[in-house]
């Protein structure tokens, strides 16, 4: 009945798989962005669980997770800006119709 490292890694695996599924199946660009957020969260759960169980007190995993959060916020801001630009040009954010650069 004790909670170990494996349980947290299992939750992170669920987050990763669902995030990957979201990225693969959603056609809305912002939906894909939501899937990316799920995957980044699974990485964060992994980092913090390893920090807690394998090296407590060293804080390396937590600081890395902080940088991941910062990068995720920056990525979300830029991606939403790009989505707004795509919507201005194509009047949709369906990623299947944005094929102008396909050649």
């Amino acid at each position, binding site marked *: 009945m004790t909670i170990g490292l494996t349980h947290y890694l299992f939750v992170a695996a669920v987050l990763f798989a669902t995030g990957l599924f979201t990225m693969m199946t959603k056609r809305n660009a912002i939906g894909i962005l939501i899937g990316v957020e799920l995957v980044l969260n699974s990485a964060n759960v992994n980092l913090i*669980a390893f920090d807690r169980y394998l090296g407590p007190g060293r804080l390396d995993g937590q600081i890395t997770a902080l940088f991941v959060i910062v990068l995720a916020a920056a990525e979300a801001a830029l991606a939403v800006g790009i989505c*707004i630009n795509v919507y201005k040009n194509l009047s949709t954010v369906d990623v299947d119709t944005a094929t102008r650069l396909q050649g």
Partner: protein
Amino acid sequence: MTERTVQSIRSFQARTVSRPGGTLDNSPPVHWGVSVETKLPPLSLSGRGVGGEGDVARRLTRGSDHSCDHQGARFSTVTLLVVAAFSAFTASASGADTQTDATSAAAPGGLLEFILFNLVAGGVVLSAIGVCIARNIVRMAVWLFVCLGSVAMLYFLLAANFLGAIQLIIYAGGTLVLLIFGVMLTSKSPWVRFDPPKIELLAAAAVCLALFVSLCVVLARTVWFSAEGIVPGATVAAFGERLLTTYLVPFEVAGVLLMIVMVGAAHLARQEE
């Protein structure tokens, strides 16, 4: 369909509609919500003749009702499956822990931690599945909100207090609001759906399920070496000290990156004159 039928459908107080032929159509109760005027995809449900405004209105409302029911059924079945798998895995993993005593040495948790972990992890798993199953982008955002909050609770359980607060502030408070603004700025109607073909759904589900199963097998087989150490309590002071000594260069680089991203995003999203 005559005008009388349309009116009678519009005033749907009684559950029965008198049709021109005189027969009674005891259809199930239909929700007359916001979905009458919006552009819903007319699902092919009515086997009657197409034509007339009343038929279209009925198909619209039935389409919405049917899709809600369908989505609810899908969600509940997948949820039941995952909850069963999750509880089985938790039971087996805790059994393995009590046998080998691999990772549980550093966690003096007990029953309370067990209950709290199961509640919070169940919330994380369910909301993540809600994100990947929901077809409406607004529902996806709401499920993502629940998921990010539950992950923050998981951080608190892992004794990462500062990161839990950061997760709530930046993710649930900042990034999610940004995403919702993106949704509102880039959709013509809140009911627009982008449905992938069935074959792609099946392929993606197969790939993700295979990845998940292989990850679980690896996790169940791995024996982690456990560090016998103190479990830190309030870590914010130590956190700041490490951030400004060991991790000073990444900290500054992250600050520069945030400034560049702020300027770049404002430039990308600006209104053209």
